[in-house]
């Protein structure tokens, strides 16, 4: 057992972090916000291997595992990289052109029938929409989608297409792949939330070190210190839960995959929401402005919390395993 990142994993992390910091640093957000999705940016992500990461070499991939995918998505989460990242990554082996970024693939999780409106993230930017159902995956060409772009999405970096009716689509994969999508999708969303939990902690810590009130940095007050200490614990819990779930998916003999992944989604969801909320609070009035980072992170957290199963859904899934 060596539950430390190996050198390749560290290199992957470093490479992605430096790419993402440069391309998606907060100073770029005002510009990105005007047009969150562009084909050029998407190609760059493909070149970085974000989608092909786990494909066999023969298919143009690098044959990495879920731990590496989790590390990659953690970095994407840290800088709120926009686009249907999870769907295109999952689709790499199913939809031609997804791995290279030529075909932009999004999706809708329909495994849990609900009365929710049909809101497709980046719907207007897609080539292909996948419909994830319990018994299989259906493919719909984006051109056949009828819908209305939502005027004000919650997350300014996640535009939504409100689809009036779903075409039936073409069945391209069965129940096994559907189950795999659901589980891996949940983990990748958790990984992005881990990134959010980390960066909101970093932002809030830095702000607390420099912002002065009552002639001292606010970070010298226990009230702020203890909030941040709790944020640190939550971000750490999220980190190791996500990595452990990745390692379990990579070798299911080391644990229960569903339990590991659902635990990660619960803990990372909790951490992202907690830390983003505290980040707003610690920034004080500035946390309530559009111009500073905290609100973007909080808003994205809601998007990811509602992707591939919420905290209560996954908590119940863990409970079901306990009782098994």
């Amino acid at each position, binding site marked *: 057992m060596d539950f430390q990142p190996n050198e390749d994993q560290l290199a992957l992390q470093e490479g992605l972090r430096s790419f993402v910091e440069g391309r998606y640093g907060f100073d770029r957000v005002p510009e990105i916000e005007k047009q969150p999705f562009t084909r050029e940016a998407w190609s760059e992500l493909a070149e970085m291997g974000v989608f092909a990461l786990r494909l066999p070499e023969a298919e143009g991939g690098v044959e990495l595992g879920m731990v590496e995918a989790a590390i990659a998505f953690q970095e994407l989460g840290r800088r709120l990289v926009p686009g249907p990242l999870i769907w295109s990554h999952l689709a790499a082996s199913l939809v031609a052109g997804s791995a290279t970024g030529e075909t932009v693939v999004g999706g809708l999780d329909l495994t849990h029938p609900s*009365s*929710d*409106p049909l*809101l497709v993230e980046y719907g207007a930017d897609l080539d292909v929409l996948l419909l994830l159902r319990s018994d299989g995956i259906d493919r719909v060409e984006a051109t056949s989608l009828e819908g209305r772009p939502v005027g*004000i999405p*919650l997350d300014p970096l996640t535009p939504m297409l409100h689809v009036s009716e779903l075409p039936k689509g073409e069945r391209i994969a069965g129940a096994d792949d559907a189950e795999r999508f659901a589980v891996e999708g949940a983990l990748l969303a958790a990984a992005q939330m881990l990134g959010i939990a980390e960066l909101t902690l970093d932002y809030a810590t830095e702000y607390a070190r420099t912002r002065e009130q009552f002639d001292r940095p606010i970070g010298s007050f226990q009230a702020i210190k203890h909030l941040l200490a709790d944020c640190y614990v939550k971000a750490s819990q999220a980190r190791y839960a996500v990595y452990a779930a990745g390692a379990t998916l990579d070798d299911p003999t080391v644990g229960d995959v569903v339990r590991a992944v659902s635990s990660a989604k619960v803990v990372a969801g909790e951490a992202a929401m907690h830390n983003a909320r505290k980040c707003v609070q610690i920034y004080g009035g500035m946390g*309530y*402005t559009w111009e500073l980072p905290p609100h973007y992170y909080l808003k994205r957290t809601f998007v990811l919390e509602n992707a591939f199963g919420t905290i209560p859904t996954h908590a119940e899934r863990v409970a079901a395993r306990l009782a098994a």
Partner: protein
Amino acid sequence: MDLRYSEADEKFRRELRDWFAEEVPKHGDPPGREDWAARREYDTGWQRKLFDAGYAGVNWPKEYGGRGATLTEELVYYEEMARARAPYIGMNFVGIRHGGPTVIAEGDERQKTTHLPRILRGEEVWCQGFSEPNSGSDLASLSTTAVRDGDHYVVNGHKIWTSFAHAAEYCELLVRTNPDAPKHRGISWMIMPMDLDGIEIRPLPTLLGEIDFSEVFLQDVWIPAENLVGAENDGWRITNVTLRFERGSAWAADIIELQSFLEELARLAKRITRDDAAAWDDRALRQEIGHLSAEVESLWAWIKFSISETAKTGIPGLDGSAIKLGFTELNQRIYETGTRLLGRAGLVREDVGPDLPSERIVDKFLNTLSLTIAAGSSQIQRNIISERILKLPKEPR
């Protein structure tokens, strides 16, 4: 301990209820977020209607054009206002709830006759110039200066979180008039006309994307000395007196709103389906909403206790901070629950389905994030409670 309203209160309630039932629908729906002229018209128009009906400044003394209502009548007023979903006080907020009462308490006769009737009739909009970029929680450290020059003060500084600054005729302004005194002792409270030279307004978009707030830059603004309210350097006391009076019954309308929102959530949860069952079939959700409602009830009772205490003693008790803390934290939890209940419908800030009020719920949730920060953050309130109510020793500085 008696929760029954008197016959006079109930008579007032019936009167109000009839009037709201008639007037609220007539006043129509509020205009869009960015139509400033229309919003001003809507807010001040409603204020004028209140004034004409005798309901403006319900808690202001009669001599200044208010209704001079008792505290329980005031409570009835807020209850009925909330029940009728009457227009929110909006742009009249600072004038009616803050600036006006301060002028009543501390202003001179000229200030009173100049401003009070116009505020009541919706003819004067006020804004607030208290916070500064480096003076938030530590408001008393403010550094905007006012230097006396003849019969004027020359003001320089930078204010932030000024709501509706560009729509306002006047600003209640805190300035430092004595830089050498201890920080609480060198502050003055004045009325700044917003049409003076040297005032620059720069909108500050909130996380809602709204530009209700601004930064206000003051460069050599010459304010007539007669606009000083109270004594020079007595501004900190003046501010705190008003603040203390402001709390209390003002929460009443919000509390009623929270209770009816929780009822709305219950109805919504019956309509929303998840996994082929109504969301309301989820016991965890029911318990959560029931729990939140119990807490709202308790705050409502607390406010009634606090108002009764003020009615008896004439002075608001110390519980304002504690009620503010409890109320604002609870408010956030309630709208977070609402946003979570919406599921993916909560990922948009406009309505995307029949009976799915995403816009209102999500925007309100985002709005609640300011409540635990503005007017003394939760951290500041906890300091106040622990030091002033529980008498715990101060921290070393």
